[in-house]
């Protein structure tokens, strides 16, 4: 390791240091509450964000294990924002317990490191290790409420199924290594070119297993079964972290593999991916209609959004056009923000009254908390893709690219799905504004979570009104990979 290697991955190093620092703070400076731990984590995440935003150096670090470029910088910023909001939601949520769950802080930091590594990795070994670092931290985070039987179930289920999918991923990587002779993505790309891979069973089995492993993490149907149970059982801030972070990290790794490692194969697997995209969004939306529990509804909505994002990948792969690729990055960032907002609502409602996340619990919320209700309305409109919110532009970019790429039928199916999805998102809004509050309805207010929700809602509206700067950021992020197109 040289100094330049370390400076290239400075944001990752600072978050790692932050995780260790917060562990040490808890060990040597134990006090009531979680304020001091939050402060330490936020300081290190801010330093990492400054390094990520200012990084103009790009290049390959650690003998090709990972790369620092505008693509990884974009995702570094995304993950740091996600981690900061998760800490804002979690620090008060977990401080309420009789025993503050201090493990929350280092595990969120380590999971963030894993996500950042996944987005920067240019070697399959690094991708796998990043994914495992993220997943192992999340298994524990899901089971963080040790006395809640639902939380333990979520952690255990996620662990068993996640280990199974990791085995698929690793086996796929081994077969790809056997087929191409390298785990380094650019080297794999050169090995693929020139040789007829279309009838190579070893290669296709490897690629199929790799897709299963990543498909599990992005909750692609038919590998989505774990999502509702795990989201439902996990503590609300952790579920939001999962929905926002894991999806973005897994898509980032997928984009790297597809664009850097296998650029020559576009047309061959595109039909398969079209089927997955259609099934994923349709199943997710239809099942979400029937949910009466907000957490499960958001879990199925997460599945549906994975389908929309797959539409984006379908649109980019063969011709590698710029707008669709830009759209995916934009969508992932916006998706992270609006999902964190929706889970912030659950954090708010569940932290005082047990895990009361039944849809009826929000009835009449607007009477008591007009500002919070307005924020929730923005999140739901954004998830449904209605202007003037940021979610609208995410869908416009992705679907427009699909049409331009000749996948008109796919875009129409995606639009129909969005129409179906509007029903269950708007149902929450209707409940808040047009019903009388029930006795069990939520009454208190946590200022920290409320502030986070206001910030998220303003950000989503701002991006929705002025999508230019964010789209430009996404375009720069994609341009790093454009060279390999």
């Amino acid at each position: 390791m040289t100094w330049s290697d370390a400076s290239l991955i400075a944001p990752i190093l600072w978050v790692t240091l932050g995780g260790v620092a917060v562990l040490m703070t808890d060990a040597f400076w134990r006090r009531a509450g979680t304020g001091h731990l939050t402060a330490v984590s936020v300081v290190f995440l801010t330093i990492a964000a400054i390094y990520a935003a200012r990084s103009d150096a790009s290049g390959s670090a650690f003998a090709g294990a990972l790369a620092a470029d505008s693509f990884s910088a974009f995702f570094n910023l995304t993950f740091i924002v996600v981690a900061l909001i998760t800490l804002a939601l979690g620090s008060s949520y977990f401080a309420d317990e009789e025993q503050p769950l201090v493990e929350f802080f280092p595990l969120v930091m380590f999971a963030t490191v894993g996500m950042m590594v996944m987005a920067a990795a240019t070697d399959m070994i690094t991708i796998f290790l990043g994914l495992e670092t993220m997943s192992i931290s999340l298994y524990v985070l899901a089971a963080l409420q040790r006395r809640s039987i639902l939380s333990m179930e979520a952690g255990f289920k996620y662990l068993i199924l996640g280990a199974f999918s990791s085995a698929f991923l690793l086996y796929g990587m081994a077969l790809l290594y056997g087929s191409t002779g390298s785990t380094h993505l650019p080297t794999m790309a050169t090995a693929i070119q020139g040789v007829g891979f279309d009838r190579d069973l070893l290669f296709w089995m490897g690629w199929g297993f790799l897709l299963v492993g990543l498909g599990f993490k992005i909750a692609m149907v038919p590998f989505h079964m774990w999502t509702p149970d795990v989201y439902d059982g996990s503590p609300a801030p952790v579920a939001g972290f999962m929905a926002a972070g894991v999806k973005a990290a897994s898509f980032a790794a997928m984009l790297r593999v597809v664009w850097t490692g296998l650029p020559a194969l576009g047309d061959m697997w595109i039909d398969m991916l079209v089927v997955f995209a259609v099934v994923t969004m349709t199943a997710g939306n239809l099942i979400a209609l029937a949910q009466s529990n907000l957490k499960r509804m958001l879990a199925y909505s997460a599945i549906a959004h994975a389908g929309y994002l797959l539409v984006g990948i379908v649109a980019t792969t063969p011709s590698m056009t710029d707008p669709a690729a830009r759209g995916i990055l934009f969508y992932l960032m916006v998706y992270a923000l609006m999902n964190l907002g929706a889970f912030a609502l659950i954090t708010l409602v569940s932290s005082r009254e047990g895990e009361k996340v039944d849809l009826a619990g929000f009835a009449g919320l607007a009477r008591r908390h007009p500002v919070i209700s307005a924020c929730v309305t923005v999140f739901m409109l954004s998830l449904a893709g209605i202007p003037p919110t940021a979610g609208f532009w995410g869908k416009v970019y992705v679907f427009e690219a699909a049409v331009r790429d000749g996948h008109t039928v796919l875009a129409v199916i995606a639009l129909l799905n969005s129409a179906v999805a509007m029903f269950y998102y708007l149902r929450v809004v209707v409940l808040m504004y047009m019903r009388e509050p029930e006795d069990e309805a939520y009454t208190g207010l946590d200022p920290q979570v409320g502030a986070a929700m206001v910030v998220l809602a303003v950000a989503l509206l701002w991006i929705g009104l002025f999508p230019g700067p964010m789209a430009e950021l996404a375009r720069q992020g994609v341009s790093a990979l454009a060279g390999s197109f």
Partner: protein
Amino acid sequence: MEAVFFYVFGTLAVISALLTVTRRDAVASAFWLIFCFLSVAALFALLSAHFMAILQILLYAGAIMVFFLFVIMFLGKSQDRVKTSDWRVVALGVLSLIGATVVLTRLVGSTHAPFPAVADSYGGIEAVSEVLLTKYLFAFELTGLLLTAAVIGAVYLARREAPGSRGAKAPVVRGLTSQAATSTASSSAVQHEDVPHA
């Protein structure tokens, strides 16, 4: 000569693996699994992957199997033995075996990659550690972080809540009705008491 050893150890590995899954006694299964690991270690040694062979014996046949046996004996032999499998399960197993054999035989040798021949020292400790600390340095360091996260999680989940320590108050079970909550909570509290003794 090498081929002879390969077939001997390969056959032993397959037979012991079969015995592992067919024995009804868990302890016998575990011992056959040790035998299987040892045969695979011999195969590694034949491939001049000495370091892997040593690790296979030390970690798998040694540490992990001791753990396995410890848990089996700790839990005690179950009185009702595993029932003979349904014929459908057996049929499914045979079918997947045939399928896997067909696919694997087609996979063998279908690589396009130019794998160069390697020297005898390829899998030695020196060669492995050199690659580990140069080319795969990042992966090596990241594994350390991964294990740190795993240790934090394991310590947290298995920690015993001593009476009188913070957090040892009445358990709260979220999301259940109050009556179910108290009954489950008390049973889970008992469970937590038991875990550290294991």
